[in-house]
C-alpha cells in the first residue's frame, strides 16, 4: 500500500498520463455516442420528413415543432399514437412472457447445479450447451423459424396438413403472422437465448453465499425446499433484482428476432419499441418520420435511465450496508482497544 505522501508524489509526476490514457475513449465516446444522443434529442423537437411534401407543409427536419412530436405519439388520437402504444404494449407482453419463465427455469437450474449433494458428472458440458443459444446470430435463428413455420410454403405446415397451409385456413390459430403465435415464438426464442446467461449469473450469486449457512441448515435438518426459500432465495434477492432490471433494459432493445421473424416484414403483434424507432428512422422517404422516431427514442432513453438508476440503487445499497457494518465494527474495536481491555482474536 502506498502511503498518502507517496500517492501525492505519484500524482504530481504522472497525472498527465492518466489523461492521455483515457483521452481516446472520451473523444470517440463523445463523437459516436454523446453527439448522436444530443442530435436525437434535438431532432425530436423538429419536423418529420426530408421529402418535398414535408418541406412544403412546413414539417421538414429544419422546422422547429416544440413538443408536438411527443404530443403526436403520446396524446393525439391517430394512427401513430396507436402505433407507439401498441409497440410499448408488445414490448411489455413479450418481455414479461419471456422473463418470468426464464428466471424460474434459470433459478431452478442454478440451484441444481450448485447443490453439492447431487453428484453431477458433465456439469460443464450442460453449462456450455445451455449458454450456446446466446451466441447464435439472431437473424439466422429467426430465419430458421421462418423456414419451419413461416409463410404458405413452410415445411412444418406442409407436413402436418399434407399441403400448403393456405389450403386449410389462412387465419389458422397456429399461423406465424397471427397475434399470439408470433408473440409466443418470440418469447420462446428469447427464453432459449437468455436462460443460460441468467443461469450462470445466478449460479455465481449462489456460490457467493456463505457455505456454512447451507451446512448449518443441513445439520438442523432443513429439507431442500426450506433451504431454498429460507436461505438461497432471500440472499439472492439483490442479484435477482439486478437481473430483472438489466433484462428490462435488454427487453427495450429487442429488435433482431421480431424484425426478422417474417423475413424482414414486421408482424404488427410483435412490433417492439426498437422496431418502431427503426421503422420511423429508416423507412422509405414518405414513411420516414425522424421527429417521431426521435421522440420515441427520448422516451425510451428516460425509461432506460430510470431503470439504470434503480440498478445502481440496488447495487449501492448492499455495499453501503456492508461498509456501515464494517465501520461500526472498526469503531467498536477501536473503543475496546482504547479502553485497554481485550484483544482481537
Amino acid at each position: 500500500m502506498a502511503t498518502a505522501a507517496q500517492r501525492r508524489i505519484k500524482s504530481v509526476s504522472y497525472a498527465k498520463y492518466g489523461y492521455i490514457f483515457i483521452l481516446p475513449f472520451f473523444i470517440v465516446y463523445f463523437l459516436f455516442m454523446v453527439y448522436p444522443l444530443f442530435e436525437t434529442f434535438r431532432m425530436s423537437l423538429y419536423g418529420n420528413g426530408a421529402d418535398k411534401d414535408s418541406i412544403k407543409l412546413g414539417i421538414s427536419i429544419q422546422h422547429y415543432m416544440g413538443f408536438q412530436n411527443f404530443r403526436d405519439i403520446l396524446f393525439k388520437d391517430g394512427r401513430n399514437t396507436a402505433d407507439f402504444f401498441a409497440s410499448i404494449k408488445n414490448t411489455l407482453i413479450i418481455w414479461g412472457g419471456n422473463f418470468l419463465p426464464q428466471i424460474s427455469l434459470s433459478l431452478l437450474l442454478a440451484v441444481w447445479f450448485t447443490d453439492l449433494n447431487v453428484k453431477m458428472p458433465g456439469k460443464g458440458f450442460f453449462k456450455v450447451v445451455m449458454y450456446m443459444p446466446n451466441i447464435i446470430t439472431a437473424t439466422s435463428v429467426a430465419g430458421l423459424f421462418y423456414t419451419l413455420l413461416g409463410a404458405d410454403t413452410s415445411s412444418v405446415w406442409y407436413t402436418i396438413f399434407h399441403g400448403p397451409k393456405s389450403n386449410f385456413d389462412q387465419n389458422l390459430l397456429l399461423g406465424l403472422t397471427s397475434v399470439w403465435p408470433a408473440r409466443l415464438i418470440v418469447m420462446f426464442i428469447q427464453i432459449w437465448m437468455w436462460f443460460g446467461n441468467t443461469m450462470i449469473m445466478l449460479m455465481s450469486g449462489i456460490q457467493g453465499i456463505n457455505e456454512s449457512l447451507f451446512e448449518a441448515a443441513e445439520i438442523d435438518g432443513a429439507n431442500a425446499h426450506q433451504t431454498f426459500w429460507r436461505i438461497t432465495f432471500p440472499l439472492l434477492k439483490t442479484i435477482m433484482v439486478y437481473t430483472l432490471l438489466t433484462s428490462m433494459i435488454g427487453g427495450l432493445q429487442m429488435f433482431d428476432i421480431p424484425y426478422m421473424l417474417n423475413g424482414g416484414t414486421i408482424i404488427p403483434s410483435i412490433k417492439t419499441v426498437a422496431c418502431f424507432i427503426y421503422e420511423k428512422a429508416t423507412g422509405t422517404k414518405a414513411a420516414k418520420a425522424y421527429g417521431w422516431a426521435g421522440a420515441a427514442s427520448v422516451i425510451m432513453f428516460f425509461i432506460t435511465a430510470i431503470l439504470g438508476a434503480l440498478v445502481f440503487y440496488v447495487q449501492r445499497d448492499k455495499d453501503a450496508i456492508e461498509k456501515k457494518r464494517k465501520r461500526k465494527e472498526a469503531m467498536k474495536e477501536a473503543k475496546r482497544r482504547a479502553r485497554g481491555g481485550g484483544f482481537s482474536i
Partner: protein
Amino acid sequence: MSRRVTYETDKGGYQTKLLIKSILIYIVLVLLTIVCLAPLWLMFVQASLSNKESSHFHILPSTHFFENFKTLLNDPNYTSLYKPWRGLFNSFFVAASCAALVVFFAGLTAYGLVVYDFKLKGPAFVFIIAVMMIPTQVTTVGFLSMIAKFKLVDSFIPLIVPSIAPPAIVFFMRQYMLSSFPLDIIEAARIDGSNEFRTFLTISIPMMKPAFAVQAIFAFIQKWNDYYTQNLVLVSSKKWTLPMMVRNVSAVRNSIDHGAVNFAIFFSIIPVALVYIFLSKFIIGGVAAGGVKE
C-alpha cells in the same frame, strides 16, 4: 416407543432419495440439452435438403449440402443477394477489428483509471458508469444524421471506430485490474527506466491476458451478430455482412430455391459456432465473472 432414527438406519433412504433426485434432474437436463441443440441441428438439416425435400419437415439430414452451396455460389438469383465469401470477409473484418480495438482501448482506459491519480479520475469513472446502460437504439436517429453529415454512410468506420469506447468493458477491466493487478510492478518498471506506454504494452497487457481474451471473444461474437447497426450503416452489396445477406435471402424466400436459402442461414452461423466450440470455457468463465450483459 418409536424406533430411533439414526444416521445408520436412515442412510439407505437418504441415498435412494438422492439417487431419484439425481435421475430426475438428469432427465430435465437432457431434455433441455435437446431443446438447446435442436434449432442448430435443424439449421444443419435444412441446409442439406434439396428444394423439393425442404417442403417437408425432416429430422435427419439429406445429401444436398454441397449442392446447395454450389447453387448459392453460382446461381445468379443469389449471387446478387448472398455472396458467401464476401460476407464472410466483411463480417470477419468488422468483428475482428472491433474485438482488437475493444480490448486494447478498454484496457488502456482502465489502466489509466487504475494506475494514475488525477483530478478528473473520479468524474471520468462516474461518467463511464452512468452511460454504461444507454442502449444504442436510442441514438439511432442522431446516429443516422451524424453519419450522413460526416459522409460515413456505407463505410466501415461507424461500425468499427465506436469500439474504442465501450463503457461496460472498461468497467469490467477496471474491476479486474483492481482485484488482480499488482501496482508495485509498475513502480519497478519505472525504476528500470521503462516509459509509461511501454509499461502498459509489455507488462500490463501480458498480465491481463485472461481478461483480454474473454472480452475479445465477447466483442467478436457481439459485433458479428450486430445486425442492427450494420443494417443502418451499410448500403452497397460489396459491404454487406453475413447477417444482412441472410436478411436478403429470407425476404425473397418464396420465389427461389429453399435449399440454398437454408444453406445461407446455416453458413452464417458457422464462424461464431466454431469460436464458441473452441473457446466456450473462457466464455462461461467470463459470464460468471459478470462483465458481459449486453
